[in-house]
């Protein structure tokens, strides 16, 4: 008995020792890195080079190094902050919040969380914010690719970035009928950290696209002097851009300390690459968002006098729907979203519109798929016969969707409609789920008719 027990114990100890030895060989896994925008790279090649030509691979290294120098890594995000405390990027994005959202997922005894982006967002939106996280192909619609700087549901007009409140709202409320969840249980601090991280990824992504768009014009010259960039710290690099920016602000007349020729050349490069492309073209666009919010005019008094929209407003809206506003083109005569159904959103059109690409022939865009593009899927116009509106169901939300359109989609803005006409379309849109398609023009149902019932499927 004792012998067997001894044998059992000694063999168990040996086996556990062996397991521990094998497992101890495992090293700490490297952190994920930002993925290069290879789709944009291929697109720029197709747009600007001969079919058999490619950009020099050194450019990739130059772009990556510049991005890492300015924006850091997923574990250690960074902001260029070339204007010190007054830097508009610092006012737009808080570095403390970024640190809360970045890095691997962890929490402490007090319940404070880090790595919020990887915990809540990265599986769909991707570590780079490219909308190509591991779950992307399984979802409809695809998760948002932040790098184009376009957001659908916002209070600002087309081509203007969303406000922080818009982003908070989408995170808090989610988007019905999509894989975007409602983060109702997250504390305010964490939601704001996610908002800042999304802005950070967006600006970084827009900047990468801007740099790649510059490659064709370089004609073999380097984008940036990597040797000089690596020789200096980030501070020096950004100070270089700052020096260039200050000089530009002062009209080139102020006295600057003399710099070595190499450093001066780098400063000049950074002044264009950072000062101009990043700050003037991208950061400035994000800086005055609150001033561009579309004000929703008060609805006409008689429109709001009853719970359901009055018939005359509904009839007026119906006329606009089929006429001047031309909603019928995509949403269809039935409003079931069965009009024009072969449109693509901007995230797909961005590379799908490249010359030589035919959506019907996969061979023509195989190289984009290999570069990481998600297969094209047509946009389905909203079925207006069900009372579900992804951007919010309040009349003011619907007003903004109609007046401003939906960024990145074929839904256009309506500059030709007067505010009163937009309200009329809002009234009709709100009435459509209750309108019977048969039995008279104005026949209304007491409850939503729903697409399936209407179509009789």
């Amino acid at each position: 008995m004792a012998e067997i027990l001894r044998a059992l114990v000694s063999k168990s100890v040996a086996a556990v020792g062996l397991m521990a030895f094998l497992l101890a060989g495992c090293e700490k896994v490297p952190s994920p890195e930002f993925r290069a925008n290879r789709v944009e790279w291929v697109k720029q090649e197709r747009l600007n080079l001969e079919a058999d030509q490619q950009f020099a691979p050194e450019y990739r290294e130059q772009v990556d190094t510049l991005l890492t120098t300015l924006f850091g890594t997923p574990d250690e995000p960074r902001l260029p902050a070339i204007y010190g405390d007054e830097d508009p990027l610092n006012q737009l994005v808080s570095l403390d919040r970024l640190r809360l959202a970045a890095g691997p997922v962890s929490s402490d005894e007090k319940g404070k969380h880090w790595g919020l982006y990887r915990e809540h967002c990265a599986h769909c939106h991707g570590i780079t914010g490219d909308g190509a996280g591991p779950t992307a192909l399984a979802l409809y619609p695809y998760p948002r690719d932040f790098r184009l700087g376009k957001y659908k549901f916002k209070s600002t007009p087309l081509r203007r970035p969303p406000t922080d409140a818009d982003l908070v709202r989408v995170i808090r409320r989610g988007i019905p009928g999509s894989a975007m969840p409602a983060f109702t249980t997250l504390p305010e601090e964490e939601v704001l950290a996610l908002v800042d991280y999304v802005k950070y990824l967006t600006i970084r992504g827009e900047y990468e696209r801007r740099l790649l768009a510059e490659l064709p014009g370089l004609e073999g010259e380097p984008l940036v002097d990597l040797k000089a960039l690596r020789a200096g710290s980030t501070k020096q690099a950004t100070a270089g851009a700052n020096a260039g920016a200050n000089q530009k602000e002062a009209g080139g007349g102020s006295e600057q300390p003399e710099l070595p020729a190499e450093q001066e050349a780098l400063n000049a490069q950074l002044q264009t690459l950072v000062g101009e492309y990043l700050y003037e073209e991208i950061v400035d666009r994000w800086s005055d968002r609150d001033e561009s919010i579309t004000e929703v005019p008060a609805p006409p008094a008689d429109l709001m006098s009853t719970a359901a929209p009055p018939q005359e407003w509904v009839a007026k809206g119906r006329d606009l729907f089929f006429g001047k506003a031309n909603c019928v083109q995509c949403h269809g005569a039935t409003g079931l979203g069965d009009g024009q159904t072969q449109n693509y959103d901007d995230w797909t059109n961005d590379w799908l519109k490249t010359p030589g690409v035919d959506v019907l022939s996969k061979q023509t865009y195989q190289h984009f798929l290999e570069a990481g593009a998600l297969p094209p899927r047509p946009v389905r116009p909203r079925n207006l016969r069900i009372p579900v509106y992804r951007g919010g169901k309040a009349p003011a939300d619907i007003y903004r969707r109609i007046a401003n359109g939906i960024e990145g989609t074929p839904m256009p803005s309506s500059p030709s409609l007067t505010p009163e006409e937009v309200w009329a379309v809002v009234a009709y849109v709100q009435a459509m789920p209750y309108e019977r398609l048969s039995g008279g023009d104005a026949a209304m149902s007491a409850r939503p008719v729903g697409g399936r019932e209407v179509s009789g499927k």
Partner: protein
Amino acid sequence: MSVIERTQQPVKRKERAVLAEQPAEEAVPGYSPWPWRVGALLVTVVFPLIWFGGLVTSSDAGMAVPDWPGTYGYNMFLYPFSSWFFGPWDFFLEHGHRLIGSTAGLVAIGLVATCIRCDQRRWVWWLSGGLLLLVIFQGLLGGLRVVIDARTIAKLHGCVGPAFFASAAAFCVVLSRWWRDQGIQASRSASAGRAPLALGPAERQVWRGAHLWLALSFTQLVIGAFLRHVGVDGSPQGFQHLVYTHVALACIVLGGTHLYAGRVRRLPGVEPRIRSAARWLSALVTLQFLLGLSTWIVKYNWPSWLDSWTWTAQFVIPEKTMWQTNIVTLHVAIGSAIVACWAVLTVRCWRVFGLAEKAAAGAELSAERAERWQIGQGTTG
């Protein structure tokens, strides 16, 4: 060599083999319920352990305690109870998972000791030792998952846990009174000259089928673990393939389990415990299929082709709510329960059909002996 000598040799080998396979408890009929009780306690502890583990993953709480084997510098067992129990949810889950895991390890040690003390079958001792090793291995995996924060280890940890649960449940069958009674019953039947259970093609199909479905259910669980622990830098194509495989295998396991249960139901004179396990499996697999659909919906919403209905189109995913985490975790826990059920059924099949096979071999042996005796009589007489 004469004809008789040639026929005698293989018979001797077969005889030795049959005698060697006789279970030890048949020679010593004494039975202690203690190993079974401790085994049942182990299974009872491991199920909530799996549940907590599932909640840890669903809540992304794996790194809520950054050190291991200690907890924020404390010995794990000495960490202040109130700070843990009333602390943040993530910390409650992770530390709780570790405490239950340690309890499972202690019970597994107790099981080895009880088996050695109360059960005379040496192979049972070795099996209990194997279970202890498995739980230690699982503990090491859990610790390393924290120390090196690796998804691959998390996937392995997510697969070894259910494997241990299933092994412990199957081991309980070996320790049960039922196991002993089956042996005694078979011995009595043999000595009374009663015909053993006929082991026809249908019985063999049920026996083999149990192995097949156990393997497929575990494969399904492994794919599920890979889906749950997909890294943020994983490829969309890889995830999509995993989803398709998981769904296809879910349909196969669902259909196959119902067919299997139907076959067992139709089998005349089948052991009631095999029948009840098959019935349980039918119910669990159906529930699991529905939970799988629910898991997809609460994680990724309804399929887009269902968005013509108001109630699907307006659904918003309730991220990290109790509803979401518990539905997903229930899917994980029932998956483990299914594998455990198949393991129990497989071991029961081994016992029932294995004994029948041995009895048949014994009967064949007796017939050969009688024949040999008759031949011997004929030649010598």
